[in-house]
């Protein structure tokens, strides 16, 4: 197979675009798509400071690299969950990338260690308060990313969610008719109230396979191993179903998610916006003052429960 843009050998076929690219043309294609996403969704401007949430996996390290290559002012935050084996291996990948690729560009890595802050790793914490590990993990990561972004005056927080992630989440939300979650599926969520950072997903136009291919071509050394808690996750079932549909009918995933975004944009003039809803329902947490719908936020309630469980 030849590259459709130049005479070189292709390294990846992209059936959803009915094309194929060599390494250089794939790199250019991915960076152009990310730049287009940033502009189209008004994610951030060249002067804005961006904080990327990194895990050591392909999506977040690739996002960090692309934003650096596009010349944005970007730093990264890694949350060390304290999962035996996996966390130290993922942290090693992140630190290595920071040292070799990011720091020479003036980009900094911040590490937040759950165990130092909460006295236990994520698995023990979840056990103590009798919640599934992934749900406790989600609460902690959301909380810490927002806290670091807010306290250090970043303009926006970026995550590596891709087209497969968003299409799978949309499928899950539609299957259960979780309409309140549909509101939050935009790739660009405004800083609706004081204390909440703006959140964006610059990779929402790229499939997981395209991102992984970009990482391989550009020698981004990421952790292929998955978090051991992810086994059997519902998301994997949705992703598999969508990939089977994609194989039959290339472009299914993008038509599904982008089509949803188009409809959401059209209806946003009539329905109250997420910012409006947030402004009427959120208030500062009584303990930490991060915005919450309850009196005390879910993170502070979780920490309080963990402390009483220890006694």
């Amino acid at each position, binding site marked *: *197979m030849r590259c459709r843009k130049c005479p070189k050998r*292709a*390294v*990846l*076929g992209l059936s959803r675009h009915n094309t*194929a690219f060599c*390494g250089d043309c794939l790199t250019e294609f991915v960076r152009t798509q990310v730049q287009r996403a940033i502009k189209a969704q008004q994610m951030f401007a060249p002067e804005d400071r961006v904080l990327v949430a990194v*895990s050591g*996996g*392909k*999506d977040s390290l690739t996002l960090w690299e692309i934003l650096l290559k596009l010349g944005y002012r970007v730093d990264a935050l890694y949350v060390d969950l304290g999962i035996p084996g996996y966390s130290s291996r993922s942290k090693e990948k992140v630190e290595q990338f920071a040292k070799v690729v990011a720091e020479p560009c003036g980009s900094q890595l911040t590490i937040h260690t759950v165990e130092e802050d909460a006295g236990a790793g994520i698995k023990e914490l979840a056990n103590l308060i009798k919640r599934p590990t992934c749900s406790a993990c989600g609460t902690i990561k959301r909380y810490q990313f927002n806290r670091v972004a807010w306290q250090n005056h970043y303009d926006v927080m970026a995550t590596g969610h891709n087209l*497969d992630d968003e299409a799978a989440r949309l499928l899950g939300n539609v299957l259960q008719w979780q309409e309140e979650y549909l509101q939050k599926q935009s790739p660009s969520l405004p800083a609706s109230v004081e204390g909440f950072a703006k959140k964006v997903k610059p990779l929402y136009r790229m*499939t*997981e*396979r395209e*991102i*992984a*291919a970009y990482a*391989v*071509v550009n*020698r981004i050394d990421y952790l*292929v*191993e*998955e*978090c051991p808690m*992810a*086994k059997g*996750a519902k*998301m*994997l079932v949705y*992703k*598999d179903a969508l*990939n*089977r549909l*994609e*194989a039959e009918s290339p472009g299914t995933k993008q038509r599904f998610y982008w089509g949803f975004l188009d409809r959401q944009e059209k209806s946003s003039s009539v329905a109250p916006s997420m910012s409006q809803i947030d402004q009427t329902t959120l208030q500062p947490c009584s303990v930490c003052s991060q915005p919450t719908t309850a009196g005390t936020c879910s993170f502070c309630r979780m920490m309080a429960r963990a402390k009483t469980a220890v006694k």
Partner: protein
Amino acid sequence: MKVHLSHPTRDLIIQGPKRVADIFKELNLIPEAFLIIRGQDLMTEDETVADGDSIEIRPVISGG
């Protein structure tokens, strides 16, 4: 040829030469969920893997 897979990590021996597309079929894998890597290079589905080659079939789907 030697074939390395992840999640869980395992190694297989498959008779070559064989086209990448046929390796996917033989192992009952969806191409959209994997990359094929020989050395440091990606291979497209129409390319052929020689019997003496070592390849990695790398999953690209993450669950988080």
